[in-house]
């Protein structure tokens, strides 16, 4: 009986992997296909690969600057969220004060806030302030979800560091702030790195805020790609090529932070 179970389980796993990967692989293949292969009536799996779409779309259609915009926004929001969120997380992990859990819940609700509801007033407010269409606005908008991600994840990481470490550092003559910077931050470094990667991914992948708030020049990759889809005669090779550029680095990053994904995506509810 056990061998039969095992055989069935392995067959199921193979099926799961095929289903999970085939659509992405199909897009990857499409990015290397000539026009005729991409538009064939019958799906083409073997073909002479070409790199022309990458050059066409990144250089000729000037999509390369969008990569820079995405990088700017993702790095910007990551730094901002960490700089502000890590100290706050430390306080949430160590301090005791009335209403702490409620305040913490407030951070959660901001992470959950529906983008479509937040972006409407944001658009009007930034419009009045004359800030609309800059990359800075998108950086700020992305901190709506990244700041609370940082606070939630880092609280967990700080909580895992024994409080004796704080005490020892203070006995060594550090002030509270000094102990935080010189002792706690280095101890939490792996957690900070994992959190940073997750922040980067969430911002890099985000669409709605960037779509509404950025201008044509400051638009990010995710906003730029759908622009290549037209009702008539979409060049799918080019769409696929930019999509690969937008996704492949993220998939590599994912492998790095996989251990921390569960915690990051469940607000620390499940440790993983």
């Amino acid at each position: 009986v056990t061998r039969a179970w095992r055989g069935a389980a392995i067959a199921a796993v193979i099926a799961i992997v095929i289903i999970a990967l085939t659509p992405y692989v199909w897009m990857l293949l499409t990015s290397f296909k000539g026009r005729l292969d991409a538009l064939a009536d019958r799906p083409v799996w073997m073909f002479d690969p070409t790199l022309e779409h990458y050059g066409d779309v990144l250089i000729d259609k000037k999509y390369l600057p969008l990569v820079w915009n995405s990088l700017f926004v993702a790095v910007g929001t990551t730094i901002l969220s960490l700089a502000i969120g890590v100290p706050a997380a430390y306080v949430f992990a160590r301090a005791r004060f009335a209403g702490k859990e409620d305040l913490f819940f407030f951070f959660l609700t901001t992470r959950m806030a529906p983008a479509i509801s937040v972006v409407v007033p944001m658009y009007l407010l930034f419009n009045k302030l004359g800030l609309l269409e800059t990359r800075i606005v998108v950086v700020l908008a992305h901190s709506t979800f990244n700041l609370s991600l940082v606070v939630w994840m880092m609280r967990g990481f700080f909580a895992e560091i024994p409080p004796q470490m704080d005490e020892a550092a203070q006995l060594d003559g550090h002030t509270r702030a000094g102990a935080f910077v010189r002792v706690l931050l280095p101890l939490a470094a792996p957690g900070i790195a994992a959190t940073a990667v997750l922040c980067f991914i969430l911002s890099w992948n985000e669409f709605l805020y960037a779509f509404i708030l950025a201008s044509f020049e400051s638009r990010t990759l995710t906003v730029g790609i759908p622009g290549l889809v037209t009702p008539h005669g979409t060049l799918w090779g080019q769409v696929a090529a930019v999509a690969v550029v937008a996704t492949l680095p993220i998939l590599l990053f994912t492998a790095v932070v996989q251990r921390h994904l569960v915690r990051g995506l469940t607000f620390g509810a499940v440790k993983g």
Partner: protein
Amino acid sequence: MAPSRSRRASALILDRGIGPLFVTPALVLLVLVVVGPFFYTIALSFTDLSYALPDRDGSFVGFDNYRRLVRSDPVFWDSFTTTLWFVVASVAIEMVLGLAAALILAGLLARGRFVLTLVLVPMMLAPVTVGLIGKLMLQGEFGMLTYYLRELGLMGQQTAMLGDPKLALAAVVLLDIWQWTPFVTLVMLAGILSLPRGPFEAAIMDGAGRLRILWDITLPLLRPIIALVLLLRSIDAFKEFDKVFILTGGGPGTATELLSIYTYRVNFRDWDLGYGAVCAFMVYLVVLVLCSVFYKAMSRRDRSEP
């Protein structure tokens, strides 16, 4: 013993100066980017502001917009129903498939982790690219999936999923399942691997079969995690925008117009901002309710843990 413990407890309370210093910047930023806009939305919802009609300059109109929502906007309620169908169908299927996959992977132990990395691909892709992949595969003329569905006789030779109102919603659900089942698997697997071994060993000693162990031990022990994943997925599915916006744009007609897409249309196509604020507020309200359920579920779990 007692004095030293209380000394430790007091050492844990941060110096008076540092706590507020560390938390305030985060609070200020959140007030600026979330709380401010939230109250601005509520204020807007009582005005007639429109960027399309110059005579509607944002004067106070009382509850007019709310009255319009309740009495004379069937499209809003249609999109509300569509959203509910979308949430229920995709989340239910994701839960079942994701849990099944997690149970299978947990049985493979060490190799399960490696397989998991591959399976996670769909949920790490930008939702926009997920939408584009769906569009590429479901194209009427040369879509890969369209071709195989027709060949297998599962779909008529002239049928294109994205062009048919009923099938378009199914396509949207299908794509969401493809993207988010890995999330359910990931969290469930973490949950399964963290379960205590004792009950399982006892059951095996008693000679219980696999299905019996699954039904009587694994699932009851997993219940809190199942509830958490269910809530998190429901909240996210309710907010869904990117994929569907790219895949169908809400069409054909309004067949796949989710609440978020309708809200987008009212605000940024019709520029009917006063009424659009009411729609945005409704989405907010539902998510807030789901959130507080999530919070209650979580604090109950924390209390039950030693």
